[in-house]
């Protein structure tokens, strides 16, 4: 459910506070996005998604209490889960395949420029542009 302005309502789940802040700043600088929630672990991510019903979940993988792969599994037990873009420091093919097989629509490595993230996330939500796998 987008905002009245049509912005993509986004939740950011990452246990690194400073990274979460930087990603939020990058998205809030882009009119296409509205950050409606943040989470520092997987359990909190599920709670925030249930409360906010966002258009997009940006999801880290290595997190305390519940990791990103567990979140992906639990999300797809819900009716109409949001599209999930995994944003992770892990770049090995097996991890990417696993995340995609669990329902992520895209997998973006944390080494990508932060200025590229809004375009990548927007493409993942609309289903056009970048394909679902590791872009670039």
């Amino acid at each position, binding site marked *: 459910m987008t905002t009245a302005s049509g912005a993509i309502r986004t939740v950011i789940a990452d246990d690194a506070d400073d990274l979460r802040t*930087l990603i939020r700043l990058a998205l809030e600088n882009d009119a296409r996005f509205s950050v409606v929630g943040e989470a520092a672990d997987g359990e909190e991510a599920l709670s925030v998604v249930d409360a906010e019903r966002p258009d997009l979940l940006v999801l880290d993988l290595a997190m305390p209490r519940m990791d990103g792969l567990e979140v992906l599994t639990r999300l797809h037990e819900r009716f109409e889960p949001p599209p999930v873009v995994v944003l992770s420091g892990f770049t090995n093919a097996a991890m990417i395949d696993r995340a995609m097989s669990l329902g992520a629509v895209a997998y973006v490595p944390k080494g990508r420029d932060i200025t590229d993230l809004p375009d990548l996330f927007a493409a993942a939500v609309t289903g056009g542009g970048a394909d679902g796998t590791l872009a670039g």
Partner: protein
Amino acid sequence: MGASGLTVGGRRLAAWFPAGRPLGDATWQQRHRSIVVLAWLHVGGLGVYGVVRGFPLLHLGLEVGAIALLATAAALVHTRMAQASAATLALVSCSALLVHLSDGLIEAHFHFFIVVGVVTLYQSWLPFGLAMAYVVAHHGTVGVLDPSSVYNHPAAINSPWLWAAIHGLFVTGAALAGMRSWKLAEDEHTRAEEAALQLHERTIRQREAVQLNDTVVQGLVGAKYAAQLGDAEGAQRAIDRTLALAQQLVSDLMSEDDKHFEPGGLRREAAV
């Protein structure tokens, strides 16, 4: 075939036999307890059988008593090998006594085969060798000196050496089957140990990969993102923090392996 060919052949032959690796304490204790219980059951059973067969009580008492002493020793002596040896001698003496009490009944000799199989549960050459040596000594001495107490048919009584050899052949067959089973159990145990070690190493590697991700990768990403958003101070803080965490991680990893503190332990394979 030169010396190297013999060595290859010898190695192949040796590989067929078990190495005799010690069992774990819990496994060994469990098996030894069962074997000692079996020996005590025989003490009771042979005593009753001897009475039924009409043997004098003193005669029976001495023979069964000797086995009881061995079974007691098997529970009381200190070392594994002493315990296993006493238990083995107790059991194989039961075989000999059964043959004696039955006046050489051929079916009683089957008990020797069972005892050889039971003794291989120790997965050790000493008790196994003791059992085989006892069978050879029993058939080769008692069988020759008093053949009617060991055999119950004229052919064997008249040719005790020949029939000792025939019995020996079959006991050897049973022994070889027991050894093969022991060897396969050893190999299975080795494979399980290797799999457990690989799993342990994989778990450690995964934990270290996550630690590196959480410290170095996340930290560098934070520094990069901050720099790209124009936050130079934030980028510097992230770099400093990442460097400190990475150095701590290196220290923590190195403390698990003292080799790095010896001359040569820091030698790289190639320049960075």
